[in-house]
């Protein structure tokens, strides 16, 4: 587990890329937020362009309804904008941003419909994905690139089939490269539980992808 944190930070390419870009520009996310607080809208645009993709996928891949995901995505940025006047650097901006997103997700979705039920919908998408894979395989394109693309689609369906808590931990880790400690702050769970969720998520995805790929090749 000790290695998990260090490995996560070391092996996470998006996070390293982000840090390199920050250092290259010389402006951290917190400083961009402070600049926006002083009226620099360009700083907010820069901040938005940096975080819009991962945050959007954070919602889209946890929710079956895309419209609901987009609504929550806009609500998250709306809260960031409204809270900019009173923003103080007490934590990393990423942690603060995804804590807002996590709370919105809890309030609007989990309170009404547990996300575990979404796993069933993931199965449905899995069925559709399997059908598409079978169709493509039937058309006969057996190169490696096609195999990777097919595995990527299998991975997407496998991620969708994860339990909600594991899915959230997996997305935060693989999208943003957040450590188990940061994820535990966002999800408001213990560090050990977060580490376990991450490990289980990766292993489950591997097994899922392998199983689905084996089934595809058999067909």
């Amino acid at each position, binding site marked *: 587990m000790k*290695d*998990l944190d260090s*490995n*996560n930070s070391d*092996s*996470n*390419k998006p996070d390293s890329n982000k840090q390199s870009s920050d250092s290259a520009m010389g402006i951290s996310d917190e400083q961009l937020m402070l600049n*926006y607080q002083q*009226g620099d*809208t360009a700083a*907010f*645009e820069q901040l*938005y362009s940096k975080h*819009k*993709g991962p945050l*959007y*996928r954070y919602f*889209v*891949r946890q929710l079956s309804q895309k419209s609901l995901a*987009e609504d929550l*995505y*806009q609500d998250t*940025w*709306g809260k960031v*904008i*409204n809270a*900019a*006047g009173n923003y103080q650097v007490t934590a990393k901006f990423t942690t603060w941003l995804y804590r807002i997103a996590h709370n919105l997700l809890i309030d609007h979705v989990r309170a009404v419909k547990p996300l575990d039920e979404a796993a069933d919908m993931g199965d449905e998408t899995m069925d559709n994905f399997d059908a598409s894979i079978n169709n493509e395989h039937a058309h006969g394109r057996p190169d490696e690139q096609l195999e*990777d*693309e097919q*595995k*990527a*689609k299998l*991975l*997407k369906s496998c*991620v969708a089939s994860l339990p909600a808590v594991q899915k959230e931990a997996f997305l935060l880790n*693989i999208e943003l490269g957040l450590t188990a400690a940061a994820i535990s702050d966002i999800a408001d769970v213990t560090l050990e539980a977060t580490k*376990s969720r991450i*490990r*289980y998520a*990766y*292993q*489950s*995805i*591997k*097994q899922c*992808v392998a199983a689905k790929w084996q089934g595809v090749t058999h067909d």
Partner: protein
Amino acid sequence: MTDRHKTDKDAMSDEEFIALQQEISALYKQQALERPSAAIDAAILLQAKATQASSLKNNVNTAEKSNLVQLSFWKKHRLPISSAASVMLIASVMLLNPEFKQHAVSELDDSVPVMSDVATPVQMAAPVQIAPVQTAEPATVKAPVMDATGVTSSVAAYMSESKNTPMPQARVQGFDAQIPQTNKAGVRGQMKMESAEGVSVGEALTSSSSTEPRLERTDIERNRTELDRTAPRMHVDSAEKAVMQLSELVESEDYVQAERYMITIEQRFPNIVNPQHPQYDAFKKLKQQLTSQ
């Protein structure tokens, strides 16, 4: 399946987990990454700009309000209000307090330069020795009212009353003796009339001359002049002496003065026309003598 995961997890080392992460991460990045639409991006950025503009405006307004010091009406117009209040206070005191007004007028008179009265010290230095005032007579001073003949009506009234109570001769003579010789002839008639009225001239002067002695004295001199012009001065205070004076004027053939003196006697001693008056016959004889002339 959970139990199987647990066994897999326990069996997986850190190196194997790192390899698993890299493998899954590579597959994850090969898939198409969803991104928000341009409409959502534009909406969020527009909201950010609008909110920032409104917050900046609010901050400016707040700063302006915090910099402004609200002055109350009284502080804003403190100078005109205090001046008006002072003027009102002084005006009220002067209008409601008559003593303050008198003092103000007297002080104002003192401050105005006037011509000195030192050049006419005689006016105040008229040495009129006053006999003791009769206690039975009223102390009030009545200004003598002059009629057409120059004799006061009060004198005539007194004369009508004094036929039964004649004026003591000694008092009149003593009064005359106290008047200086220079003014004796001119003042005597008036002094006698004043004494007949019951109030001496000196008392009248002293009672009213505290503030305007010059004016009072001027009035007396003017009245005396008028008496001189209209009728001969009455030097006697009895009908007998008056008739003797009239007879002397007739004998001296000064008929004009005698006629005037006769009229004066008639006005001063109206009972002399009464046949029962002791001087009636003598006065009638002189009157006929004068009218025949």
